[in-house]
């Protein structure tokens, strides 16, 4: 009986902590002054809140652009970037990191190329 009570109390505490974190992120993400407009790390201007139009609303572009703006200008984005980079650094053994798609390069010439005079 005592164990069941403790378990229930533990479950409530867990739910409280999880929803506290969820709501904290929710409120934090809505603090517009904290949203950056430029990224010093990436050296670029971040996405802007989209202009409303009936056409973009109807074809889904408006909500898609809000998603982009919301993620791109997330408060403390540089901190989250660093956290994500740290997680990525644990993926494996870093020798040389392959970024992007590996495509075939130009062939290496096997003889010296002599320009016509």
């Amino acid at each position, binding site marked *: 009986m005592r164990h069941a009570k403790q378990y*229930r109390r*533990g*479950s*409530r*505490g*867990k*739910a409280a*902590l*999880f*929803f506290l*974190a*969820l*709501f904290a*992120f*929710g409120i*934090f*993400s*809505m603090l517009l002054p904290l949203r950056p407009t430029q990224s010093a790390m990436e050296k670029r201007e971040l996405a802007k809140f989209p202009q409303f139009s009936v056409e973009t*609303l*109807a*074809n*889904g572009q408006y*909500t898609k652009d*809000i*998603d982009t703006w*919301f*993620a791109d200008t*997330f408060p403390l*984005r540089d901190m*989250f*970037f660093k*956290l*994500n*980079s740290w*997680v990525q650094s*644990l*993926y*494996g*053994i*870093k*020798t*040389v*990191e*392959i970024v*992007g*798609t*590996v*495509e*075939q390069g130009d062939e290496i010439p096997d003889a010296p190329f002599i320009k016509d005079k």
Partner: protein
Amino acid sequence: MVFSSLVFLCVFFPLQMLVYYLARDIEARNTVLILFSLVFYAWGEPFFIVLLVFMCFVDWGLSQFIYKYRGTGKSRFFLVLGCTVDLGLLAFFKYTSFLLGETHQWFGFPSVVPKIALPIGISFYTFQLLSYMVDVYRGEVAAQRHFRLLLLYVSLFHQCIAGPIVRYKDVSEQILSRHVDSQNMRDGINRFASGLAKKVLLANVCGSLASKTILSGALADQAKNLPTLENAAALSLWLGCFAYGLQIYLDFSAYSDMAIGMGLMVGFHYKENFNYPYLANSITDFWRRWHMSLSSFFRDYVYIPLGGNRKGRLRQCVNLLIVWFLTGMWHGAGWNFILWGLYYFLFLALEKFLIPGLQRLPAVFAHLYTLVVVFFGWVLFYFTDFTQGWVVLKGLFCLNGNALISFESRNILLNYLFFLIVAVIACTPLPRMLYHRVCSSTNGAAIALGTVLEWCLPVAALVFSISYLVGDSYNPFLYLQF
């Protein structure tokens, strides 16, 4: 909207939970769920929300007649009418472009192939509506008298766009009355958080690795991709196909986990959709563990009504062929999906009729055989362009004149080595077993550790997932083709 988006995690979901629990009675709570579900769907498909509501309205109206005239020919007539409307709309939106593309290629007609947009989740909610009408026809459940409650069942954002395919009879009572105790809430949080981490931290990275190594697989990219694929080292191709196999399981099961978790948080109990399919010891066993809500749908609404195994071996074989042809088609409008379904038909028929002993192989060989069949099945599934698929298939065995290991492929393997080990472990029950072992231990230190894990892991999953979503733009939605 998708579960793994920041707008969903930071705005939609907390707001929905807050408003849901501020609502006093079940009526108000159902209204909250309907409104939020419509916004959820309309966020990604502002136009096709009309189609969802229309199909639901038609089926609601027809189901009243199916129920009223149950046991008579009229009931059957209304059922056939409802199925024709639903399947007709599904066929129109999902297969018209594909079929006209084929006739254009072979006969030059039509001169221009129309591009018809595929409404998100149409395959899932159509099947839900079909199961509802058939169950009403069979007398297994009464027709829902209130349109808004049927709309709640069909549009409920937990399962509307990516499953599991929830049967109306499984939730009909929960729509009217449901209760959430602390155990449900705890389990719901665990399922949601683990699903979120699985999708964002594991599946997305697997997807990124697959697209890096075996590229897009799409016909439109053929000219661009072929030279790279022809020269890619075998190791790189093995890694890509392997990563895709991991991605599709982790991604799909993660969505089901999140749906089940969110359902538990508001009192809905959805059935499991995956049961560690990569531990299967035969293809038959694999399909008992993979996308169980789809397999059971085809079993109950196609295979058994066709006669199942009750009308002789030949008829059983034909029934299986029909089911697997449809299973392939359901996954996408493309020949590779149809062939993928027939590929599984071959192995299932092989296990059932020709070599039943396959299922009695020693465990190691049985698992190995299953994994090899499933692996090459995913290769077929991935490449909508057969030319690229064939090049990759040959490249896996160095038959393109490609190297076994190259500098890049070795580096990619090393760069992702620990991640791949974690992703493989995540496909097994090991993490869950370990977690339960720690949390249920009576040892003093284990209790403390268990409590910390129990409380902190869901929050950690949330924080790391948000950091990934802020810091990485690769977040695909695999179910668009379904």
